[in-house]
Every structure is written in structure tokens, then in C-alpha cells.
């Protein structure tokens, strides 16, 4: 999880170095308070806040690549942490009144931290908008990391069902078409070339299909080598066109074996069902039946 912490070494050194300097400085120049004078409620409140800020900072660093937004967020949190930390040290150590640096660190670091964090969040928002654009065909309406398939990075069947429900709830009068896409004889690829090769091929096929979809379409991995494509705002005729385009794209995809270099061609069968106001389960079932038809007759299947 924290494998990305390594690239942020310098920021971490700065924040924790300053915290350590504050501690050493206070110890040299101040005197420890007697136990009776310590307000434990303050210690708990301020210490807890400092600890939480440090944890948040580490979580952000541990989950983000290096970059401007990361720097801003970390420094913002880091300065806020420093302010709380120094505040907390005051509970244990009594500093003479002429030591101004302690006051500055306590009161100055907090506003600086808040400004940096706010500025960072604004940029993070813009960054997120552009990432959403990149992820658009994988996640249309909401994000749920537990529903993501590890191999293809597409949503799994639970995600598909939630998305279908979201589309149905939003505009009940709207046209929608669901495609079930199945790779023909994919089991043979696994048998001939092994699971690893099969997995790579499946991943590349999913990328290829993503490229052939529109901005508002959504593709999910249903199970094994079957994919589901949601085409919102789409009529039957247009759904057919898109399905044929997908079929052709896959047909012309010259996948290269990763070690041997030979080309493996694949074909897909597609079952098509347009939404007629039924439940998610019924729609998925109808699309699966259509796929079964397509498999037995070849090409594109439909169940009215």
C-alpha cells in the first residue's frame, strides 16, 4: 500500500525534521511541567488532532504519484500537523515568555497549512475532472472500488447492475440497449497458450472495445470472457450498428503472442436487448438469451 512513499522522502523529512526540531528546541529552552499541571483533556484533543493529521498526510502520500497536487496537499497537512504538534508540546513543557519562535510556529503554521491545503484541493478537483474524463467509459455514474475487476480494470457484474439501475432510475422513458459480448472459443486460447496469455489477451480486448465506444457508453466484465456494454440513449437500430462495429474491430485486431510473437485473431458474438421497462435482472437475462441465439447461429442475436 505504501510502496509510493519512497518517492516522497524529502517532503517527509522536512515535516518530521521540523517537528523534531520543535521538540528539541522546547526541551533545551524550556522546563518540564510538573504532572499536576498537565491538562490531560487538552493533551488528548490536540495530540489526537496532530496524530490524525500525520496519518492523513501519510495516506495521501501513500496513494498518490508525485506531482504538484500531491506536494500542496502534503505540505498543507504537514504545516497543520506542525501547529498542533507544537501546541501539544506546550502542555508538557513550559517555555519562557521571551521565546517568540514557539508562538510563531504554533499560530503561524496553521494558517499557512490551511492556505496550502485549500489551494491543493482546488487543483485536486481540476485533476479529478480530467481523470474522470479518462475513466468515463469504465465508470459512468458512481465510483465503487470494491466492484472493480482486477484483470481488466472494468466494473464487475455488481457494478453493472448498480449502473443499470442508476440509468433506469434517472430517465425511465429513455431508450437503452444492453449488449452481451462473448469471445468465441476463448477456452481454447487458455488451453493452447496458458492462462497468463489468455489474461493478457482479455485485457487488450477490453481496451480495444473501450476505444470503439462512445463517451456515454459503459463496458463491464460480466464473468470470464463475457462483457456487458450499456448503451444509454440508444435505439435498436443504433445498438445494432454499434454491435457490428465492435464485432469488426475485434475481427481486425491482430493480437501478438507476448513471447512467441505470432498473431492470434479472435471473433466475438453479441446478444442485444433493448430496455422495455423491465427489471435489471430481466434485461440481463434477455441479453444473455440473445447471446445464446447469436452463439448458435453466429454473429448478432436479438430477443424481442
Amino acid at each position, binding site marked *: 500500500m505504501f510502496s509510493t512513499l519512497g518517492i516522497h522522502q524529502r517532503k517527509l523529512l522536512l515535516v518530521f525534521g521540523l517537528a523534531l526540531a520543535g521538540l528539541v528546541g522546547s526541551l533545551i529552552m524550556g522546563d518540564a511541567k510538573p504532572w499536576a499541571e498537565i491538562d490531560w483533556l487538552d493533551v488528548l484533543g490536540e495530540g489526537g488532532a496532530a496524530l490524525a493529521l500525520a496519518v492523513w498526510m501519510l495516506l495521501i502520500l501513500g496513494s498518490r504519484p508525485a506531482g504538484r497536487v500531491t506536494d500542496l496537499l502534503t505540505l498543507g497537512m504537514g504545516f497543520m500537523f506542525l501547529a498542533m504538534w507544537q501546541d501539544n508540546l506546550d502542555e508538557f513543557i513550559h517555555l519562557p515568555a521571551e521565546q517568540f519562535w514557539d508562538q510563531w510556529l504554533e499560530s503561524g503554521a496553521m494558517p499557512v497549512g490551511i492556505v496550502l491545503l485549500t489551494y491543493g484541493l482546488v487543483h485536486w478537483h481540476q485533476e479529478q475532472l480530467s481523470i474522470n474524463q479518462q475513466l468515463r467509459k469504465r465508470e459512468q455514474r458512481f465510483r465503487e472500488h470494491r466492484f472493480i475487476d*482486477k484483470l481488466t480494470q472494468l466494473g464487475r457484474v455488481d457494478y453493472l447492475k448498480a449502473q443499470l439501475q442508476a440509468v433506469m432510475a434517472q430517465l425511465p422513458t429513455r431508450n437503452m440497449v444492453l449488449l452481451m459480448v462473448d469471445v468465441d472459443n476463448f477456452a481454447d486460447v487458455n488451453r493452447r497458450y496458458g492462462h497468463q496469455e489468455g489474461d493478457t489477451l482479455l485485457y487488450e480486448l477490453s481496451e480495444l472495445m473501450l476505444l470503439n465506444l462512445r463517451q456515454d457508453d459503459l463496458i463491464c466484465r460480466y*464473468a470470464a470472457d463475457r462483457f456487458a456494454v450499456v448503451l444509454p440513449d440508444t435505439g435498436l437500430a443504433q445498438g445494432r450498428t454499434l454491435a457490428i462495429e465492435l464485432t469488426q474491430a475485434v475481427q481486425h485486431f491482430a493480437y501478438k503472442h507476448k513471447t512467441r510473437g505470432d498473431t492470434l485473431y479472435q471473433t466475438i458474438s453479441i446478444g442485444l436487448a433493448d430496455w422495455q421497462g423491465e427489471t435489471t435482472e430481466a434485461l440481463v437475462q434477455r441479453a444473455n438469451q440473445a447471446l445464446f441465439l447469436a452463439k448458435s447461429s453466429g454473429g448478432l442475436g436479438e430477443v424481442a
Partner: protein
Amino acid sequence: MTTPSWYECDERIFAAHYQPALLIDLLRSGGLCSHKILRGTGLFYDDILQGQVMMSATQAGLLVSNASKLGKDPGLSFRWGASCWPGHYDSASSLLGNAGSLREALSALVHYRRILSPWATPFVVTDERYCYVHWLTLGHMGERRFLIEAAMSALTSFSRWMSGERLPWRYGFSDSRPDYEEQYQVNFGSQLWFDLGVDVMVIERHWLDRPWPRGSATAYQVAQRQCESGLANLPASSLPEQVYRLLLERVQEPLTLPDMAGRLAMSPATLKRKLGKHGCHFQQLQDQARLHMSLYLLHVCGWNNEQVAAHLNFNDSTNFRRAFKRWVGITPSDSRSRFSLFDIHPDTVLPELVGL
């Protein structure tokens, strides 16, 4: 009986570099470390790579339990199963891989089940119209459902590969409909029946003898000879399976625990202890045998409750109905109406049980 015709759960008789290695590879390619996968088994991945390590039934069971917990992927059992056959298990694999028809393949599976299918035992029964492959998991061999999925996926995928077409199997499961039903749909198709009380694959009988293009009669015969000389002396079934088979043979006049112990040349206490080590009770095996026979009589032979009750030596049909409900969760008549597939053959004569 000089040498026992069964094996016990602590005997190291399964090659770790056969099916277990395939499962480990799948998990490793998903990013799991072998140390976690083998936790509790006392085995190390480096040793397995040497190709000499043998596992006991208990160790194999632990591996499967670890896999089903760690994998967090409902497709894992299906993927593992699909990669198992014909496999690379010496003469047993060359026998299976050269089968010229479904009948030959099933015969290889049944005879060399200890090597080809150590986790789930296939029982093959045919009547006039259908062939039934009944999968049985007895004792602690890991997660039951995971193993059934793997075994059925193995036969589905293998028969498709060998025949060059998707065979029209129908599937019955003792478990109820899972949350991840899409895995069943994609791997098995749409002919699925749940809560059946038995795990069974059904196919029309004429598929048994349709020639398989990938088979080779000569190679099959050679492999058969090799198997006979190399493997025939090894016990084919586990102790619980042996007990189950004897119970099934004598289902009309049930054997008691002391009777059974006598037939197996051990004391009742020893039999009980040994079954316990496999994670089984005598009574549970007894129930299974009677349940499977009554399902067969009800659904395949089309008998009514009274006939089945009389055949299985119940006092009356009420007692039978009660027992059946305890075993499956539904009454015999519910079972009959829910699984109309299996009522296609209403025949009051008991068809001959043909073991392959």
C-alpha cells in the same frame, strides 16, 4: 482382505505438482504469495517445484480452503477446473487425453479418479435415455462448493475441447443459487437446477458414443495398458467413499456401524475414529447413500413416494417424506415439481444401474 482397498486422509498419495500446482499458479498470477497459499499444509513452493512432493488428503483439503478464501474471485474454481484435464499426470493423462468418446473419457475418470479427480469422486450411471455424472465430495477435502464447481468445470471444458463442440450438459446442484450466478451462466450455460440435493451433470445418452476428433484409439489402448500395470495396484477410493459404496450396495437393508466395521476388518471404534479424521460420520454417509438412491428413484425412475419408501425399507411414506425433507430441505413432491427435467422418464421399472 490383506491390503486395504482404500486410502486414508493422512497417506501422502497425491502429487503436489499435479492439480495443486495448477491452483497455486493461478493464485500466484493473481499476485498472492505461495507462502500464504500453502499456510498450514507444511509444504513449500520450492519443494513442489522439484516435482517429488506428495500430499495427503488433509493437506490437499487445506490448500483448497486457503485458495477459496484468499482468491476472493468467484471465477477461480472454474478457471482451475478448466485447466485440470487432460493435464500432465503421466499415463492417466495420456489415457484421458486420447479418449475417443465421452464414454471412454468417463471410464478413464472413474477408474483413475485418485489421480485425475482426487477432490470430487465421479459416479457414472446410465439409463435408457440419459447419462448421469454424479459428483461426490466426502470428508474434509476443502470447500465443498468450490470443489464441485471445479469438477464440473473440468468435465465441461474438457469434453468441449475433445469433441470440438459445446456438449448439451444439464447441471443440478445441491447448493442453492449463488450470488455469483453469472459465473455459472458463462461457464455452464442456462440449464441449471439448484437445491437438488445432489451434484449431477446430465446428458442424453447418444452423446456417449459420438466419436471425438482429438482421440486416438491406439494411444488410448497403449495408455490403458500403462495405467493397468502402473496404477492398478493402488487404492482408488478413500475410506469414506468405500463406506459410501458399500452402503449404497446394501441400501435396502442398511448396514450398521458394527456390520460395516466387520466388513472392513476393523473394530467399530477404529472405523468411527478413522471416519472422524476424514471429517465424516457414519450416519451422515448412511443418509447420503439413502438420499442419493431416493433421488434416483424419484427423478430418474419416476417412482412415487410409497414405492421409494418401500424400496428403502421405511415404515411408511410419511416417515420417508420426513427423512427426505431433513436431507434436502424440501419434500419429495416439491422436489419432483421443481425439477421437472428429471421427470422426463416416468417408468415404474427400475432401470439397470450401469456403472462405467
